[in-house]
Each structure stands twice: as C-alpha cells, then as structure tokens.
C-alpha cells in the first residue's frame, strides 16, 4: 500500500527528531549523575577525576541553591561538549572563592533552567573540587549581549556570575544572555 509510505516516513522523521531533542535532556541528566560521582571522588581524593574514561573535561565545583533545591556539577571549560553535560566554568575567569569574578555558563533549558527561580537575596553555595565551601548571595541580575557582558574579570571582590541564554522560554538561540551576579558572604577558609 504505497499510500502508507508518506505518513510512515513522516512519523519516522518526527520520532527521530523528538528522540534527538529528548536525547539532549537525557544526556544532560545522565551526565550529571555520573558527574556527581566523579565530583565526590575528586573531593575525596583531591585529584581531578574524569566522569568517564573518554571525557575531555572534569568537574571543578558543585553549585547549589538550597531554597529551590537546585544543584549542578560545574565542568572545566565551556566547549559545546562540556556544556552538554553540565555548566561550564569559563577558562579565563577566576576560580570560585578567589578574588575576581568566577563565571559559570550553562544551557537555559537544562542545567541552568533553575536560574529563573533564583531571587535576589538567595544564597548560592559553591563547593570546589578541593572540598572548600563558599557561600555567595545573589545581589543583582542583568540581561546583556554575549559580546558585551560588562563582567570585569579584574573585580576587587570575590564574585560569582551565573549566565545562560535569555529569554528563558525562547525556542531559538539569540545574542542575549542573562547574568545573575552574586558576592561572597562566607567562606570556610
């Protein structure tokens, strides 16, 4: 029955497309589970631990917003590969807990979906892979263009910036980025 071929092809393409999209979410979720383990291992051993043998990145920090129960493991670097698995720490920025601005970026529809729910005044906890804890408090937010972030890498304070694509509900990607800014309020050093 040749009449059946065209709907069949359509359904195939549809399912593959949907599956592909869902796969991105599945990968993001599964990767975080593996990363969680790798992170605990690197905290325990004080050695960078790769989440799986062929990975080209490793976890550098865990970021938590307890009020809304969100957490994610941050990876080194922000290559497309790394961002598929977790938030990435932009290379040329300071480490969390050091003087300057540490910038973490992640996809708005996976790991940093929770960013929309973080209110000014919320406490953001960052655990570094060496086991040190830092507590930040969100103090401002802004929407900027990707090439005019306004982030000063040589800032005097210990600061944190979480960035993702803006607007949150858009389907296509655009030039705007959302920045949540936080300042260190407590560290266990």
């Amino acid at each position: 029955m040749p009449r059946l071929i065209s709907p069949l092809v359509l359904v195939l393409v549809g399912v593959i497309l949907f599956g592909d999209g869902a796969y991105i979410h599945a990968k993001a979720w599964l990767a975080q589970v593996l990363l969680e383990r790798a992170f605990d291992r690197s905290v325990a051993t004080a050695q960078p631990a790769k989440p799986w043998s062929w990975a080209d990145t490793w976890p550098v920090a865990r970021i938590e917003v307890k009020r809304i129960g969100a957490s994610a493991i941050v990876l080194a670097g922000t290559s497309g590969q790394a961002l598929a698995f977790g938030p990435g720490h932009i290379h040329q920025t300071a480490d969390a807990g050091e003087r300057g601005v540490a910038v973490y970026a992640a996809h708005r529809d996976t790991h940093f979906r929770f960013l929309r729910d973080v209110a000014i005044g919320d406490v953001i906890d960052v655990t570094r892979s060496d086991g040190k804890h830092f507590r930040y408090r969100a103090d401002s937010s802004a929407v900027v263009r990707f090439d005019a972030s306004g982030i000063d890498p040589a800032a005097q304070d210990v600061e944190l910036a979480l960035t993702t694509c803006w607007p949150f509900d858009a389907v296509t990607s655009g030039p705007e980025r959302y920045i949540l800014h936080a300042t260190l309020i407590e560290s266990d050093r």
Partner: protein
Amino acid sequence: MDTYDAVDNDEHPMLGRLIKFGLFLLVQGVAVMLVAFVALLVSFEPGWSATTEQASLLQPGDARSGTLLLKEDGAYTEAIRLGIDVDVTVSGPTLRARITQVFRNPSNDWVEATYVYPLATDGAVDTLKMVVGDRVIVGDIKERQQARVIYEQARRAGQKAALTEQERPNIFTNSVANIGPGETVLVQIEYQEPVHQSGSEYSLRLPLVVGPRYNPAPIAQSVDFRPDGSGWGTTTTDPVPDRDRISPPVLDPAKNPPVNPTSISVRLKAGFALGEVKSHHHNVKIASPDSTTRVVTLADGTVPADRDFELTWKPAAEKAPSVGLFREHVGDADYLLAFVTPPTEQATQKPLPREVVFVIDNSGSMGGTSIVQAKASLLYALSRLQPADRFNVIRFDDTMDVLFPASVPADAAHIGEATAFVSALQARGGTEMVPAMRAALTDKLGETSMVRQVVFLTDGAIGNEQQLFETITAMRGRSRVFMIGIGSAPNTYLMTRAAELGRGAFTHIGSAEQVEERMRGLFAKLENPAVTGLTAKFSEAKADVTPAIIPDVYRDEPLVLAAKLDKLAGSLEIKGRVGDRPWSVTLPLQNAAEGKGLSKLWAKRKIADAEVARSMREATPEETDKTILALALEHQIVTRLTSLVAVDKTPSRPEGKPLKLSELPINLPAGWDFEKVFGERPQQAPTQLRERRADAGSQPATRRPMPAAPDAIRLPKTATSAELKMIAGLILIMLSLVLFAFNRRQPLLTDAA
C-alpha cells in the same frame, strides 16, 4: 495496530522489507521517547515547583499610575513604597523630632526593606517603635552585633522586626523584615537635638536625603607615618570599609518620578516672643496661636525627600537673649545646658592681616546648582580681601590644582587672576578631598604675624570622613579651618566635625539667595577676633562638662555647654578673652529653667568628645569604644556601637514562603546633576551589571572607560536545539497520525463505491 493490517494486505516483497525496517526504527524511536520522557520529568521538576513566583513580575504597561517600578530579574517588580512624616516640637533650647516611615508592600511577595536616611548630626536617637496593624512594638537598645542577631533570628523565623543602625553620626539605616503582600508597616524613630543659634537667629535643619558619596577606591595602600618623624607608620587599607552600607540605589530624576513623599510639621515653642520665622528651601504655611508659638506645615502637603528642610526664627526683640540656662533631673543626677553669647567687641583696632587659603570642590557631585553657589561664594570672598592679606586658591576633584605656588598678596592683579580661575571651573570627576586638605594646611609662609585661615567649600559628599579628620588633626598646626557646606543636602557631620577639629566655624549655603547673607556672617567670624581661652567652673557642684576642651567662639556664636552635676547648687562661671581683654560671666544655677531630654544631649555630646579624642590620638580605639558603649547603654541612644531593635513576637510569614530583599531607592538631591555624578546615562541600560548605587565614586565619572568589547568576557552560547527538535518532532508525529487516519478511511470509501 493499523500497520499490521496494512502488511497483511500487501503482497509486494520489496515493500515488505522496507516496512519491516521502518517498524524496527519505530520501535527504537518509542524506546528513546520513553527514556526521554523520564529524563524530561526529572529535569523539569524544580522548574515547575517554583513557577508561582513569576506572578510578581510586571511589565511597565501593567502598572497602575503612580506606581514605582524597579527593574529586577529582567522584568519589573513593583517596589516597596515609602512615605515619611516628620513631626518636630521645639521647646526652647531643644527639639524633639518624630520620624514615621510608612513601608507599604504592593507586591505579592514577602519583603525585607532597607532604607538609608540622614538625621541631624547632633541628634540623639533614643526611640524606635514599630506599628503592625493595631499593635505597637517598642524597640530596645542593644549592642550593635547583638541587635543584628536578634533581627536576623526574627527575620528567619518569619516575625516582623525593625532595626535602626547608625552608619555615620548623620546616616542611619532602617531594616524592616517580613512585610507581607499588601501590608503596611510603620516604623517610628524619635530623636532629641539642641537648637542651633547664630547671632540673633535660631535654626533647625532636617536632612531628608543622603547625597551620593564619593568613596575613594582602595587601589594602593596608603601609609600613615607617625607625626614624630620616627619613621614608623601603619598602612591603611580600605578608606571606606562600609561603602555598601552608605550607598543605596539612587534614581535618575530624568527617568523616574521623585519618590519618598515627605510631610513635615514643626511646632515651634521658642520661649520668647517670635519675630521672623522662615523656611529657606520649602514653601510653608505658618500659623501663630500666640506670640511665642508657631505651627509650621508644608504648603504643598508632601514634598519628595530630596533636600534639607531648614527653618530659622528670630526673636521679636532687637537682640536675642544672650544667656540661656536649662536643667533636667534624671536618675540621681542633674543635667545642665547653657548657652552664652559673648559680647561682640567693637573693632577698635585694625584686624590682624590674614593668610587665607580657599579650597573649592569642583567634583561631579557639585554639578548643577551647587557649583554655581560655590563659585559665587568664593568670588564674594575674594572681593572681601584686604590688600594687606595674602591668599591662595586650590581646586580639587579627583585631581587638584593650586593656583599660586605659595600665598600671594591680595592685590588687584592676583585677585583678577584668581577670579578668572574660579569663574572657569566646571564640576566633574571624583572627590579626593584629603590631598586638597593637606595642601591647604601646608604652611609654606610660616608667617606667624598673620592669622592663617583655610576656607573650604564643599558638599562633603565623601565616605572617608575619618581620613579627612585625621589629616586635619595631624596637620592643622596654627591654621584654622572654616567649612562652608554647599548644596541642597550637604554632609553636616563632615562640616561640623572638620570645623571643630580645625578650631574654626562652619556655615551652610543651600541656595543662591543665601550666598551673600551667609558669607557676610562667615566673614564677620573670619575678620573679628574669636573669644579664646574659655574655661567653665562650677562653684559648688561636681560637674562633668562637655565639650571637654571648650572651643574658641567666633563672633555671633553662642558657647554651648552641657554638664552632668551631682547637685544643682551654686553657680557656673565662664571666663575667656575677647581679643586681648578678659571677659567673664557668672550664672546662678537655681535660675535654670526646666528643659527636656538634656541628659541625652549631654551623652551624645560626650560621645562626640570621645570620637574627637580618638581622632586626636588622645585615646585608643578600644578606650573610645568602651566609653561610647557605656554612655549609649546608660542613656539609651543609638551610636555606631548600639542599635535599636523591635521584634513582633507573633510570626507572620508562613514557613517556606521566600523573603525578597528590597533596598529602597533615594532621590538625587535637588540641584544635583545625575550625569556629573554617575557619568553618562548608559544608552543600553542592561549593559550595566549592577544597579547604580550611591557610591558615586569608585570610577571617576568622566574618566570611566567604556566597557571595551575586546577584553570583555564573551559568554558562550547556552541554548540547545532540544526543545525545537522535540516540538518539530511532535508536530510531524501528529501530522502523520492525521494522514494515517485519513488513509484508513480512503480504502473503505473506495470499497463501498
């Protein structure tokens, strides 16, 4: 399933294989879909649980008229609204002010509000009340840290709480926790203050807004060497360690309507028949129930809190009373407040020649009307110089120019040069006041036959007051420092303390009309000999007198003394020298009239003494803190070491509901120029990472580099095509289902035919 029926009916083998392959893919697709759905549920969960918070986000179009919107989280939230009512009662020598701040929360969130506001420098804040519905909660005085802890606990527990903290002797912060959606909370503070007197004019000043301060950046450590030249010194780090606490957000008047409507009423009971009563910067209605009483209210109902309220009054009689003596009995002690105006010596001899160094602040905060007033004042001063005088002019922003290498004779050529220099000044840049003060105090001539005077014109909009005070005490030598506070909201604390440490006087110029009158008053002080060598002695009572070192008194100024006595008996004798003639006056104590709140004024003045002693390095910081704490706790007043805290014991915020922090914005003081203080208005507002704060200075306005694209951090692409693919996929699946259904119907129709 439809597909199986289709296979059975078909006989073509090639097509069969193709369909089998298709089926295989389909099954695999379903499996992937299942996994995907599970993943989707897991990854979306936190997002769903918190969607209720989005409700508070508004767009500008939704706002009701007159609503203040603040940009936050990329969308607009309706801000906490604040109304202020000031009620002042003047009873003779003192005044009591009650300031009621009404915090109304129009949003759907639970909010914690903080508001930074100014108070009179000499005001002793002793009462905090919080009104929630019909309950009034009275605040207690506690050590600052302890009060903070109590407040934080209440905040976390969801209880309503109010906290009053002192940031500077004239800057306070009120924090109010857990204001519910749609709720209104009233916070009331009260303070006691002495009335100011100058010549026959009495005055009160209500500061209503904190001008944005320039806070020098801690770029390099500065080194303070001990004055003894031993080569040992200390490095100091941040000149303004609490910059965040004195820098509330400031609204750009070009973009926002004024906020914080304020109503003011003053009940003036002078204690003598009143002559002229005048409000200098506000339109007022004045009612006179009797000859010694006036009731002053704002003519327009409310005004935005953007300038100081200044009220002056004069007695109906030609001359004001030259002596005032008031007493109060508190606990087992008597407190005494004495005002004595020394006689004005008729200038029989020619005044001593003077060396005057004028310093003018032309920083960005002086932009607008302030610089005009400052220039007019300085030009007036230059015209008053005598040929025998010497003078110099220094101007500063975050740079500095000294007009002449050393002070020059005030001849026509030099005056002309200085006039041209002053007339050309423009307001811009930051406010680095310390180097200018150093330069002014450097006594290059060393001419001891001349009186050396420094006249400093500024709005005092800096956060590192303490550094300036230390400079004055370390370098003052024989110079005397006269401060002229310029503009609608000058930093009175800086003016009074700098003049006190510099053994000079201060005056305020708040509008162009005041320039001539006030400058004439100041010149009377500069040109006439001061009353020096003042001492106060009680004949019988054992007294603790403040100020501990009685300052010199300039022409038309009263000597104000506060004392704590063990018994109210005998008399008070004040001695001094007017010019080169001795002068003394004796006041019998039993003639003192009953006054109110004198003990608090005495304590507040003692605290100022302790701070001065610390600036002069006569007391260690630890000793100072101990003295201040003891006084503050005994007399129940707010200081930098003590705060007032009030907690409503009934919890109000339900557990689990989040609390948002709202730092209430303030107006830019009237006549200030926003762009001069904060630099160019950004073309694209969002490129500014933080809200503009009243920290006017870390980046000198005009020199601020534009956000340079090349070395800025580029943010990576952070959106996946997942959603797009899933939506497209779903649409295709739906489409094919429709086609299937259509195809199933088609054969039946043809069979029937």
